[in-house]
């Protein structure tokens, strides 16, 4: 028992340096929004609860590590009817899959203050590789990361059966995010 705790402590110590630079995003200043097209009309929604840990040095983007988790049940679409539906099994099935997760696998520079990240996005138990470009802005003690990507909802089975009809709700969903980090 004692030995196990010691080993554990050693392991934690060894692991510590890797997480030393990891920072929690300031969720009060950050957002995750999405735009879906319903009947060809762009409709915006957002997730109210999410968290993220970022370890990012603009000088060494390749070494970056980032992980985000979104509480899908915190969806806000403007209409209670839509929100009730969104958590049901045909959409996010939050009872079984409460969270969406993104883990950045690679980050590379794509221009001045511009970067491109790729990694696995997991929603509803399905992982798909996505690529997203973002910009970086350092100002008055905070770092702001802003970007977008488009996901295909049907690849994640978001909206099954009658909801798989892309005439009513398009397959493409634009995700817009802003993450604010302390500098």
């Amino acid at each position, binding site marked *: 028992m004692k030995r196990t705790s010691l080993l554990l402590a050693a392991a934690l110590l060894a692991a510590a340096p890797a997480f030393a630079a990891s920072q929690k995003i300031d969720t009060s200043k950050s957002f995750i929004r999405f735009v879906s097209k319903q*009947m060809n*009309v762009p409709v915006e*929604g957002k997730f109210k609860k999410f968290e993220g840990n970022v370890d990012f040095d603009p000088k060494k983007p390749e070494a970056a590590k980032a992980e985000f988790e979104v509480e899908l049940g915190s969806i806000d679409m403007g209409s209670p009817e*839509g929100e009730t539906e969104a958590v049901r099994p045909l959409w996010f099935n939050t009872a079984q899959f409460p969270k969406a997760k993104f883990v950045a696998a690679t980050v590379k520079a794509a221009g001045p203050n511009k970067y491109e990240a790729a990694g696995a996005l997991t929603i509803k138990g399905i992982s798909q590789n996505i690529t997203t470009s973002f910009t970086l802005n350092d100002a008055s003690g905070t770092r702001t990361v802003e970007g977008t990507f488009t996901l295909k909802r049907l690849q994640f089975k978001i909206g099954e059966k009658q*909801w798989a009809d892309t005439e*009513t*709700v398009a397959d493409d969903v634009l995700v817009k995010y802003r993450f604010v980090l302390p500098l």
Partner: protein
Amino acid sequence: MNYTERYTRTAIALHWIAAVLIVGNLSWGLYMTGLEFSPAKLKYYSWHKWTGVTIFTIAALRLLWRLRHPAPALPGHMPAWERNAAHVSHVLLYVLFFAAPLSGWLFSSAVGFQTVWFGVIPIPDLLEKNRELAETLKLVHRSITYTLGALIALHAAAAVKHHVLDRDDVLVRMLPFLKQRPPAPPPPTLPETP
């Protein structure tokens, strides 16, 4: 009363197109709101909104037409209160023709679902997305459309009353078919059947 005085063909056409669209959209609205949430429901809401914008446009056309082509005079037998009631209800109908689609459009904006006419022409959102405001506007839209429905029922009942009880030309002059009755004086005549 000059029995040859009818509404213009344009006024008659616009009246009946509007009548079909308005009664249709009121019933459709009543039906679709009771449905379970489904892709069909999303579609039906869009169709309802497209029809609403169309009704607004037709109401505007009718109003412009009416300003240049006054309605035929009311029959002489009508007492003052009936004339006033007719006038007030017609003004109110026009107000509601505009108020119903406008409130629906604002409600839709507050929900965050823009109205795009026939899925092609976007109608700009005047309001920001706002849940509480949306709830209020939903009630406003419902009250306006219910009032419009009631007023249309009254309007139709009055037209039938004029035709059946008063035996005047108030209904016929707005019909594209049916000939008008011969001039009034010679005592009770039966309506000419087409």
